[in-house]
């Protein structure tokens, strides 16, 4: 019979072996969501470890959504909206851009692994770009590994 600590160690390895990333994507209703739809109807293949949440506009995104996802175990985040100038509400993505840029800098300063946070502009006609972006994002999240590893603290404190 193996000792409890060994069992835990074994389980850990098992999790590592079978681990697949879970990426949450927030897509704007008017461009990126339609772009992802186009990728589907065009039968494009892309990595399937992504779960899509539809938002009215990338301007609707609150960085809190991103934090909440990460807190609850998402390994990576992708936020996608219309290209600048194409926003259904004219300016939503311009405001979003400022929020994302500063939020990303804040996470960077905290030492958060930026391979887990991605932003993109994907229009309704860019099904091919969508599949390319998803593959890129998921491969980077795979490199970064499970999010649970991030919260393990080192023994020797700074």
């Amino acid at each position, binding site marked *: 019979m193996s000792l409890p600590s060994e069992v835990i160690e074994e389980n850990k390895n098992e999790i590592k072996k079978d681990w697949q990333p879970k990426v949450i994507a927030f897509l704007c209703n008017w461009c990126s969501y339609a772009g992802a739809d186009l990728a589907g109807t065009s039968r494009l293949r892309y990595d399937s470890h992504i779960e899509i949440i539809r938002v009215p506009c990338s301007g609707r995104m609150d960085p809190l959504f991103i934090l909440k996802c990460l807190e609850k175990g998402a390994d990576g985040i992708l936020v996608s909206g219309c290209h600048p100038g194409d926003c259904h509400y004219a300016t939503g993505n311009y405001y979003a851009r400022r929020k994302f840029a500063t939020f990303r800098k*804040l996470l960077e300063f905290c030492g958060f692994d930026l391979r887990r946070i991605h932003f993109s502009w994907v229009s309704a006609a860019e099904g091919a770009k969508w599949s390319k972006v998803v593959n890129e994002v998921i491969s980077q999240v795979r490199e970064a590994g499970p999010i649970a590893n991030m919260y393990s603290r080192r023994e020797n404190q700074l």
Partner: protein
Amino acid sequence: MITLLQAKTWELLQQKEVSLILGYGEFSRKINNGPEQRIISPIFITKPEETSSLVWNDRCVFNLSTYLTGKEVKAHHKVAIMAKGCDIKSICVLIQENQIKREDLIIIGLTCQGVIGDKERPKAEKCDSCQLKTPHIYDILIDSAEAQTKKLNQVEKKVESKNCVNPVQEKFDRMDKMNPQDRWQYCLDQFSKCIRCYACRQVCPLCYCEKCITDKSTPQWIEKSPLLPGNLSFHIMRAFHLTGRCVDCGECERACPMNLPLTTLNKKMAQVVKDMYHYESGLKTDEEPLFGSFQLEDEESFIK
């Protein structure tokens, strides 16, 4: 002896120009049954005769603009507030965000040569880089430079002799120079100490939401127990909500019972915002807020 400050405030109340004065008062208090000590505390004055307890010296560290958004203070038609340069910056942001009206407020500007820090440090950290020794916006200016200069000289001598480093600046520089992994560990170590007393939020003049996102439970956005990763989410969100707004008055770090490096995050964000958008908070009341405006040519190299 009646000071200029007391005379001016007496006049304001006597002529019914204002109905409330937010100021600093000095009292004798026994602390823990020890000997009597002279302490400074924020006071709310509604009667002219009470103005005799108003003082202004380098122990007046509090940022009184925190009270301006309170219901009890808003109920008064006109309010006068004693404010140093750094405090006026936060008043400026409150006006910019339509929380208070400039015409409902009489700002008693105080020229300031620096206020005291904690026990280890005779002068507050924020005063080292202060650009507003004379306030940029005020109705009445109280110039007590003379009284303060004496103390300041003493303070500076002390600082020189001890060769004090600025602890806030030191923390910031240390974190800024770390590599990302170390920085992440440092954040985990620091923010796991947080006991979620929310003193930083309560004392902040710009955290004026009637219901804070952390208090919401349906749905719950940020975990409430004082553990990771909820603590980290709270502090990242706090820093983000203050991005482009924080005026670096340093009250959060002063109030924090666990000595967390709270202003470090705020300072970094102020720096980022200045570099990226040439935006500095608290200087103009008629400027568009950072996140309420945009430029077509804003940075987007990070977007795929």
